């Protein structure tokens, strides 16, 4: 394993400490239990947004704490959902009277831990569960689909509404709309390596890719030979459009997300391929986001997310945001 690391057990803490120091103008990292909060206390009467999940997906979620987005993020160990005491401490820390909205990615571990945290918390709270990964078949009998990169969009858009005095109900409503309007699928060229395992999560041949990979390096739809970017992007978009079934000339946000180890040049090339294909299918790209936002450690690969946009979504997407990893308008 080649990583900047001192001791495996200290990896998360030292990384969080560095994060806290590098961004002390906007956030504060709290330890035992671990959570990243805004530097300034959330204003009275504002709905508080708390998200979290296993670490290893940086900048998600700590990098999204700040004005116009999250109030707190609870980082678990690498690829392990955070524990209920983190959520409880986070909730008690931000409590501003208007209620708490937990934004949770749809994994058993995350759901159970967030639920327990919410149960322990005595004030008003609710939750949104994101499940945008179209690689997985949806079904009410099973755990359903995974929550992946669209979580970033949910956090931004709900964050804006919350900042703009949206009620807990309205925040939940727009968050669920964004989640429902979004679909994501990813591919991996290489595995990631967790500090604890010290070796790759999965083996993959020099000419293979995992189509529909999960953000923990979980297997996807199928293992395939690597193809041209155009083909890969085409297959991903087919799967997403199949799910979202947009109207003709539907306005969409196109989000090309790097898994961590793929250079920007390639992400922009993917973006270009996606634009061309979407144009030919009568989709109008109205907003875009390209970069590493919801990663899987050093995995090489990318995911594409499409989000159907209405006026309300666009307004809240465009609103100012000031976090470590996403910033505009201020």
């Amino acid at each position, binding site marked *: 394993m080649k990583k900047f690391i001192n001791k495996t057990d200290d990896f998360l803490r030292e990384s969080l400490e560095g994060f806290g120091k590098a961004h002390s103008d906007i956030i504060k990292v709290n330890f035992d239990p671990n959570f990243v909060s805004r530097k300034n206390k959330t204003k009275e009467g504002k709905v508080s947004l708390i998200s979290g999940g296993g670490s290893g997906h940086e900048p998600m979620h700590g990098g999204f704490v700040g004005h116009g987005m999250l109030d707190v993020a609870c980082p678990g160990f690498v690829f392990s959902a*955070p*524990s*209920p005491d983190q959520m409880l401490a986070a909730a008690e820390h931000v409590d501003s009277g208007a209620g708490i909205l937990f934004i949770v990615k749809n994994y058993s571990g995350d759901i159970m831990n967030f639920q*327990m945290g919410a149960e322990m918390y005595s004030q008003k709270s609710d939750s949104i569960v994101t499940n945008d990964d179209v690689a997985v*078949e949806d079904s009410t*009998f099973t755990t359903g689909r995974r929550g992946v990169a669209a979580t970033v969009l949910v956090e931004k858009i709900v964050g804006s509404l919350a900042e703009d005095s949206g009620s807990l109900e309205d925040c939940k409503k727009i968050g669920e709309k964004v989640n429902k309007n979004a679909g994501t699928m990813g591919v991996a060229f290489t595995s990631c390596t967790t500090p604890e395992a010290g070796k790759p999560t999965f083996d993959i041949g020099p000419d293979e890719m995992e189509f529909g990979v999960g953000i923990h390096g979980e297997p996807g739809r199928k293992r395939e030979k690597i193809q041209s970017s155009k083909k890969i992007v085409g297959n991903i978009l087919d799967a997403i459009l199949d799910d979202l079934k947009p109207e003709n000339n539907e306005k969409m946000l196109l989000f090309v997300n790097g898994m961590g180890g793929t250079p920007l040049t390639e992400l922009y090339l993917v973006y270009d391929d996606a634009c061309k294909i979407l144009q030919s299918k009568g989709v109008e790209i109205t907003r875009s986001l390209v970069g590493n936002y919801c990663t899987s450690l050093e995995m090489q690969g990318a995911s594409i997310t499409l989000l159907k946009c209405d006026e309300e979504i666009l307004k809240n997407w465009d609103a100012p945001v000031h976090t470590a990893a996403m910033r505009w308008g201020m």
Partner: protein
Amino acid sequence: MSVNFLISQAKNIQKVIDENAPEIEALDQNIGDGDHVFNVQRGLKLVVELENTIKDLPMDKALNMIAMKVLSGIGGSSGALFGTFFMSMAKTTDLNKNINFNKACEMIINGIQAMKERGKAGVGEKTMMDVLIPVSDKLKDIKNKNEIEQELNDVIKIAKDRMLATKDMLCTKGRASFLGERAKGHIDPGARSSQLIIETICKSVINQ
């Protein structure tokens, strides 16, 4: 059953899990995200480290401390589930009296019931519950029996059979549920770790 018994079991289990760590890790790499064994090991380490803090506490207090450690120290699905297990054990009535075999069974049955409610997984969904629910059912059965040794050997066998049976299942709960057909042919990591835990405890009771 005493707090010291709990601690000594934790130590036994720690040894067994360590010995089988590469296998469990590989199982979670196959159909999950590879962290299951590290989660379990982290939890066991924390419990063992509690020894001095809890060894003189009453059972319910000790169990609550264990529950909090497990809940806050593990994370992931296993943290929530095992934490729930201990929280619920601690809620069993009359824990301040001497805890005999039947009472111990009752505690475990309570713990497993709470896990079932927390995770909403029944038998046949390819999770640790495939091992734990049948074990719990068997314990209900043997609570008032006398020939405990044979019964515990049966428990060991049930756990093992049910663990192995997860191999050919489709998964409908937890991370492996996302895999559809591709989950088939792999034993569930949580089922394997739970089975090892059950086996370790049963064996040490038998050898007492």
